[in-house]
């Protein structure tokens, strides 16, 4: 392992990594624009120049890899490389490059969405000069649409070509290119071949300045107003790691979060703009009971009493009187509680089924990024926790006998086919736990308000068997309650239990007790990056515990 020295700090690094990577890993800041860990190296921004002993010129640290020197040629007798990032020349160089970058920059930070998370701002503040020496007219170009969701502001562009390389190397769709050369160069698209692939939104993320803008977020808010929450995406069973930005319980945008075991640095546009579906849905905020063709609000106590009354009409020893419909959209904890409710409390009176899984075509990108065929986020968890899951429930159950049907609702856009619709319609008493007025909820006799995917908390198991924490991005409102809590109340009411879990963590512990493959799973162990199910037992907290940040 080569030993190098960066600014008086001795670092032992892996052979072959670049100076920039070594410095970044050590927490030494070297500014850069064009470098991105997921993209090829072009070294064109010239921001990351450093001084390396023995080299006549300044070197771009993003393209200088560290090798091992033979013992007699080691610098100072022991180092394989001596790097200086803070010398006068380096500082002057950064200042000069920033001056060049800002020559034609409109300096319109007040109207720029990137302000606050802009590398041009940050580095100008840290390394730039205070005044412009450019007396000439700035180059002005009009904004253009690159795709239906992406606008480019040419004036702010610094030609780092991250976006171009992204379309070539990650999405493989090649829509973006650099047009013309020299000072006239700009990012462009070919005629009608606009940037409309499923990863298009990522170019906005990786743009280090405010040149690429999302039509979805443009001029909506300012970065510093937003609260950043680390969560995972629930739009397919890949479980991409995301950052959710919200203000006053309203979500403004979603960005990708780095996780090399799941999604790398990127997310797809389905997940990026998916939150609108939850925001736009007709929310259920209080328990509702059917009355006179419509619904009217009812208290939680009233709702539970109603359930108990319906339940108490069931007779012992008769099968399939109570039907539970589980959903792969719920967390492991909720599904665990649901399975417990069905198997341990209703025992042989009950039967668990599920709606058909939502499946779409699987999308694979050459870079390895994928969108799963399985568009429900937690199928694995459902199979793990609802052990007696009955596939052919429509055939097995004679609806006439069913006293109580308890369904966990799927996503907002879940449609019901005729067969299922008539099944639900024929129920004597259908309880639906949902957060929005879905087609299923509209058939219910009693609606229990649960959290929306952005409000849920718990673990999810993705299609690779990786367990990740779904963290709430916005808080619960009105009379909605966490899913596991509703099921717990259900158990307490009909099963006369006295369960008093105060948080999802306690449910989690109990779950670990009963399902050995999930044993010992805590947030500290899993962390923001998640862990494969098979590693849970063996890993120590530190391994999964560190939180990942997005490199943009």
């Amino acid at each position, binding site marked *: 392992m080569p030993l190098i020295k960066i600014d008086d700090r001795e670092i032992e690094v892996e052979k072959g990594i670049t100076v920039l990577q070594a410095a970044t890993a050590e927490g030494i800041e070297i500014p850069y624009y064009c470098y991105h860990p997921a993209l090829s190296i072009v070294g064109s921004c010239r921001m990351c120049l450093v001084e390396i002993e023995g080299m006549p010129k300044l070197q771009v640290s993003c393209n200088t890899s560290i090798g091992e020197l033979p013992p007699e040629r080691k610098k100072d007798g022991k180092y394989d490389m001596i790097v200086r990032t803070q010398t006068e020349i380096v500082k002057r160089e950064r200042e000069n490059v920033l001056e060049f970058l800002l020559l034609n920059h409109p300096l319109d930070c007040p109207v720029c969405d990137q302000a606050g998370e802009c590398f041009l701002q940050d580095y100008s503040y840290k390394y730039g000069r205070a005044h412009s020496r450019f007396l000439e007219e700035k180059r002005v170009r009009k904004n*253009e*649409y690159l795709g239906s969701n992406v606008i480019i502001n040419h004036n702010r562009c610094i030609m780092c070509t991250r976006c171009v390389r992204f379309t*070539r190397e990650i999405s493989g*769709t*090649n*829509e*973006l*290119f*650099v*047009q*013309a*050369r020299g000072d006239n160069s700009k990012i*462009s*698209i*070919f*005629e009608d*071949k606009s940037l409309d692939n499923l990863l298009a939104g990522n170019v906005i993320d990786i743009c280090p300045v405010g040149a690429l803008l999302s039509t979805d977020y443009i001029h909506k808010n300012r970065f510093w107003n937003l609260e950043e929450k680390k969560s995972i995406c629930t739009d397919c069973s890949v479980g991409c790691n995301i950052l959710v930005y919200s203000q006053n319980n309203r979500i403004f945008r979603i960005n990708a979060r780095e996780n090399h075991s799941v999604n790398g640095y990127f997310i797809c546009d389905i997940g990026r703009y998916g939150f609108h579906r939850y925001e736009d849905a007709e929310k259920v905020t209080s328990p509702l009971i059917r009355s006179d063709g419509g619904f009217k609000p009812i208290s939680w106590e009233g709702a539970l009493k109603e359930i108990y009354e319906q339940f108490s009409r069931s007779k012992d020893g008769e099968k399939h009187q109570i039907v539970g419909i589980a959903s792969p959209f719920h967390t492991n904890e909720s599904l665990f509680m649901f399975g417990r409710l069905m198997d341990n409390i209703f025992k042989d009176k009950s039967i668990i089924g599920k709606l058909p899984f939502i499946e779409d075509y699987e999308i694979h990108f050459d870079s390895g990024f994928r969108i799963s065929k399985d568009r429900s986020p937690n199928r694995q968890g459902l199979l793990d926790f609802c052990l007696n899951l009955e596939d052919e429930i429509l055939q097995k159950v004679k609806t006439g006998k069913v006293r109580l049907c308890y369904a966990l609702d799927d996503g907002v856009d879940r449609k019901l086919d005729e067969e299922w619709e008539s099944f639900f319609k024929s129920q004597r008493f259908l309880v639906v736990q949902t957060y929005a007025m879905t087609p299923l909820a509209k058939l219910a006799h009693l609606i229990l308000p649960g959290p929306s995917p952005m409000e849920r908390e718990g673990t999810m198991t993705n299609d690779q068997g990786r367990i990740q924490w779904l963290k709430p991005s916005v808080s619960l409102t009105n009379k909605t309650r966490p899913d596991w809590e509703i099921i717990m109340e259900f158990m307490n009411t009909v099963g006369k239990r006295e369960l008093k879990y105060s948080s999802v963590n306690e449910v989690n512990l109990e779950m670990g007790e009963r399902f050995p493959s999930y044993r010992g799973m805590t947030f500290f162990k899993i962390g923001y990056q998640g862990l494969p199910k098979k590693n849970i037992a063996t890993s120590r907290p530190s391994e999964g515990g560190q939180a990942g940040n997005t490199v943009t």
Partner: protein
Amino acid sequence: MNSVGDGQLTFQFSAAERVEQILSQYPDKRSATLPLLHLAQEQVGYLTSAAIETVAELVEVHPGEIMDTVSFYTMFYTKPKGRNHIQVCQTLSCSLNGADSLVDHISEKYKIAPGEVSQDGKISLVKVECLGSCDTAPVIRINDSYYEGMTVEKFDKIVESF
């Protein structure tokens, strides 16, 4: 977004065997981009978007990438040029030896500014950088031929022959 002329909607290489030959001589298809673009330009006079798409298909890349290449090089035109495309070198040696007055003369004669095409489509004029014939400055290039050691009189004589 950029507009690439207003050419035909489709484009087909007239010399199919030449295309084959070009494609066959490179180890990968992408390398044939420049020769194919030259070929396409010879055929139409400039590069229509249909031509670019055809080339893209042949070399199996996204048309955007071909456009990327096309826009980089000064010898590829995405707008129609005149039948006689006059390129006047304006770099140092030629400039020292009177290229500027030559440009002025041509502009005046055909009432076109550098970069424009005359109304009848006969003449187009551009100023270009060093044509690599500095010993015979000033140099102009009309279509594919060099005319060296130019003077205003000489130029007039040459254009008469068109």
